[in-house]
């Protein structure tokens, strides 16, 4: 028999969408987040950067993607519900502008750092990168 003290919560995942002019790189990502590469807490954001790259299950380069292919076709049917209206809007905009898109989900059952970002809700944009982490489902 196991006894668990404290709060018990469900595990969860959070969909994210990143739109980028070029291939997503650490320098642009850090600039977007507002942290210097030599920050004493840079490791927190390095971890998030690695997590979003590793967790991006759909990557689209709209410069070379077939123009007549509906955006929805890039995603399995069961995935459609994971994308918010705002995400579809940003994807349509990305196609018009020939940008790159990364879609995936963060999981609360991994590291404490990923769990934190999985429970935070945010939408941020720089001149090169857009990051939609609004779909927090906790």
């Amino acid at each position, binding site marked *: 028999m196991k006894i668990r003290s404290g709060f018990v919560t469900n595990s969860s995942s959070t969909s994210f969408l990143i739109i980028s002019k070029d291939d997503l790189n650490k320098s642009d990502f850090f600039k977007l987040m*507002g*942290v210097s590469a030599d920050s004493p807490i840079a490791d927190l954001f390095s971890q998030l950067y690695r997590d979003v790259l590793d967790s991006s299950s759909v990557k689209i380069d709209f410069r070379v993607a077939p123009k007549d292919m509906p955006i929805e076709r890039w995603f399995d049917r069961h995935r459609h519900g994971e994308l918010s209206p705002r995400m579809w809007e940003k994807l349509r905009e990305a196609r018009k502008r020939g940008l790159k898109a990364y879609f995936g989900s963060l999981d609360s059952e991994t590291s404490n750092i990923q769990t*934190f970002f999985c429970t935070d809700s945010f939408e941020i944009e720089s001149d090169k990168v857009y990051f939609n982490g609004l779909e927090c489902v906790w």
Partner: protein
Amino acid sequence: MVLFLGRNEKQREAFVISLRRTVSESVALRRAKVQRGTYAGDLVSRFYDSLFRRSLELKSDYVKYFAGEYSTFDTYLRRQFLWAPEVTNQVTAVFDRSQAIFYFEPTYSFIDEEYGQSFIERVLGRNVTE
């Protein structure tokens, strides 16, 4: 000193953080090398707020409200918080060298026993009492 206390009666993880000098929010942001108004800046600002504005500062709490009741800071810690002597001894030892001693319950889930201590030390830097 950043001392991890474990989980308290509310099942929240808690720390005692003693500082030689308190710092302003601007200094904390500068030290963390994050830009105000960005995601990272907001993250550090919220951490700053939870520590410096919403945590109980034990030293001033004792001096202002409990010095008449408890003759020593150590007694105050033992009676008010029911902390064990091995904890109160460590906290009492930094009393004279610290401008402030906070009882801190982190609001960020990643500020835990493993990563949290080093995160706090890195953001507050040399201001942490040794």
